[in-house]
Structure formats: structure tokens, C-alpha cells
């Protein structure tokens, strides 16, 4: 049992030591001890080995089963997530459709309710007029289309600025336009046209060039009157001296969308006890 040799690990390297003692020394020691004790060494595996080997089998199988199960689970969870995403997307699209159809239903119901009486019709007319002016409802009609753009191979001075678009739109209002939109972004009295970095935003949406300003109004007179306004004059000058694109074309019929996210900031409905429709909407 006690050896006179220096311990193996002190004379050889670690890896060599591991290799050299890969068989547990206990086997040799137990064997020696048994021989010294004079009892017959148990060389055959006994019940202990049987139990341990059974345990080993269970361990290996469990580990294998576990690994397979985990792999299944991660694959499953990936598929699950994809399925969930698609499901939610479909649900979202469905709900958006629902919002649209409910909005239409509300409009229809309001229209039919208002048209039921003379007073209601007056209110409905007023609503339509106000909705058009406020940009809350889509507008359709004849008008002009003013297409402006940077000059070809524009230098910094030859680009359309937010200020230029503001003047253009103000000129159109001055000339009698009833509804205005830039690149299908409806202009309301709360709309800001401003430069944000490289691009110009309207209703917080970035515009792409060229800028098409649609204005609904008398198509015969709107263009001419616009050129007489300060905004029109500015643009004639911009066109002539800087080469910015500036085209006015009359249109038979245009459709302008309603402005997005119109919200009331201060107005609240009156309590029903005090209010009648006439007063509220006057």
C-alpha cells in the first residue's frame, strides 16, 4: 500500500499523470489488500455492480431523453412564436378593418340621424362644411395641382425649403383654395410644414420629392389668382432665378384625404341637460 517511490504526479506532467492513473488505483490496492488478507478477491461483478450499472443505464437514457426533449422544446417554442406572431398580425389587421367599418357605420348613422329632420339636415350641412374646412373629412372636387421640386443637379441654394412650401400653401389659401394637401397629407389650420433634417415633414410625416400640392377650388381662377399672391410671386421668382421646378396644372377632379390625428385640445361636450344640438353646434 505505501510505496517508497515518489508520488507519480511529482515526477511527470499533469496530463501524463492523468493518463498513467486513468485506472483508479483503488482497484489495484483493493486487490492487493484482498490478497494480503488471504481472502479470495471478488473478481466477478456482484449485486452492487448490478445496481450501479442499472443506475448508469437509467442515467444515460434519462440524459438522452432529456436532451431530445429540450431540443424538441426549443424547436417547438420557435414555431410557437412564429405562429403567435402571425396570429397577432392577423388579429391586428382584422381589428383595423373593424375600426374602418365601424367608422363608416358611425358616419352613416350620424348622416341618417341628422337627415331625419330639417334641423338635422342643417346640422349635417354645417358638419360637412366644417369638416371640409377643418380637414376632418376627405374632400373631392376640381382644382389645381402645383408640382414643385428642387432644381436639376441642385446646389444647396436650389432646394425647396419648408419656408417655400409654407408660402406656397398660404398663397393657395389666399387665392381661395378650399382644401389643400401636400403629397396627400391634408393641410389643416393645425398642420405644421417644417424641415426636419434632410426632409420636410407635414402632419409629422416626411415628404418625398417632388412635392405635389393639390388645392381644391375653381380650376379656372385659382391658378391665376395664386400667381398674384405673395406666395405665388415668391415661387415665380424662385423658378426664374434658381431654376426650381414649378408647374401648375388644372385638375378636373381630385380626392384629398382627411388629415390624420385630428384631436380636440380644449373643447369638451356640454352636459346633455344643458345642451341641445342647435346650441352645441352653433
Amino acid at each position, binding site marked *: 500500500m505505501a510505496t517508497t517511490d515518489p508520488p507519480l504526479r511529482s515526477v511527470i506532467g499533469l496530463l501524463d499523470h492523468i493518463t498513467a492513473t486513468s485506472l483508479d488505483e483503488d482497484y489495484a490496492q483493493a486487490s492487493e489488500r484482498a490478497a494480503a488478507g488471504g481472502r479470495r478477491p471478488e473478481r466477478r461483478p456482484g449485486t*452492487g*455492480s448490478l445496481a450501479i*450499472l*442499472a443506475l448508469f*443505464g437509467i*442515467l444515460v437514457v434519462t440524459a438522452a431523453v432529456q*436532451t431530445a426533449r429540450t431540443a424538441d422544446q426549443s424547436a417547438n417554442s420557435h414555431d410557437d412564436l412564429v405562429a403567435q406572431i402571425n396570429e397577432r398580425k392577423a388579429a391586428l389587421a382584422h381589428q383595423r378593418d373593424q375600426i374602418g367599418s365601424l367608422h363608416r357605420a358611425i358616419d352613416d348613422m350620424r348622416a341618417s340621424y341628422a337627415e331625419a329632420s330639417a334641423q338635422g339636415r342643417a346640422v349635417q350641412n354645417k358638419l360637412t362644411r366644417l369638416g371640409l374646412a377643418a380637414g376632418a373629412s376627405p374632400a373631392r372636387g376640381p382644382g389645381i395641382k402645383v408640382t414643385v421640386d428642387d432644381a436639376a443637379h441642385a446646389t444647396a441654394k436650389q432646394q425647396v425649403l419648408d419656408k417655400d412650401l409654407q408660402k406656397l400653401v398660404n398663397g393657395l389659401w389666399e387665392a381661395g383654395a378650399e382644401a389643400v394637401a401636400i403629397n396627400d397629407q391634408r393641410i389643416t389650420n393645425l398642420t405644421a410644414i417644417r424641415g426636419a433634417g434632410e426632409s420636410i415633414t407635414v402632419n409629422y410625416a416626411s415628404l418625398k420629392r417632388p412635392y405635389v400640392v393639390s388645392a381644391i377650388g375653381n380650376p379656372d381662377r385659382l391658378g391665376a389668382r395664386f400667381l398674384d399672391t405673395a406666395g405665388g410671386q415668391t415661387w415665380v421668382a424662385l423658378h426664374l432665378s434658381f431654376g426650381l421646378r414649378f408647374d401648375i396644372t388644372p385638375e378636373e377632379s381630385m380626392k384629398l384625404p382627411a388629415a390624420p390625428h385630428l384631436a380636440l385640445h380644449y373643447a369638451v361636450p356640454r352636459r346633455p341637460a344643458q345642451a341641445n344640438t342647435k346650441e352645441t353646434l352653433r
Partner: protein
Amino acid sequence: MIAGLGLLVGVVLGLVLQPAVPVWLEPYLPIAVVAALDAVFGALRAFLDGIFDDKVFVVSFISNVLIAALIVYLGDKLGVGGQLSTGVIVVLGIRIFSNVAAIRRHIFHA
């Protein structure tokens, strides 16, 4: 003979029962299997060397599995679980290889 029987019984039991491994035990299962494999190959080699001992096998198997799991557990607590697992697997792997080499020499005399 009895060894093969034990192994067979274990495999069948595992397949039939499919015991659920608790989550906290899951990370230690693979390393325990490697440690058990080392003990089993060591036993096989000892058997072929003619110095097999039942008790030594039982003790070495259990202690191998427990110590391997303990080292990984300790490593996890110290934040070096991955590295310690690698170390344990390298050492056990070397032992398994050299034991299998000895077994091969016994069986094929080469």
C-alpha cells in the same frame, strides 16, 4: 453477464419510466453521465486486468458522479461553471480514452 443484465435493466427502466429531471438538476446531468462513463470504463478495464472489485466499483462510480456534479455546481456558484465543466470533461475524456485503449489491448491484443 451480470453487468450486461444490469445495463439492460437500467436502459429499459429509463425508457419505460422516463423520469422527469428537476430543472435545478438539469445542468449536472450531462457531466454526471460523463463521470459515470469514466467509472464504467475503468471498471471494465479493471475486470479485464483481473483486479475488479465490486465495492471499489460502487464507490468509484458514486463518488465520480457526485464529485463531477459538485465541481460544476461550485463553478456555477463562482461564475466559472462553463470553464470548470470543460476542465472536468477534458480530464474524464483523457481517462476514458486511455482506459478504452487498455481495454482494446486486452480484447484485440493490439
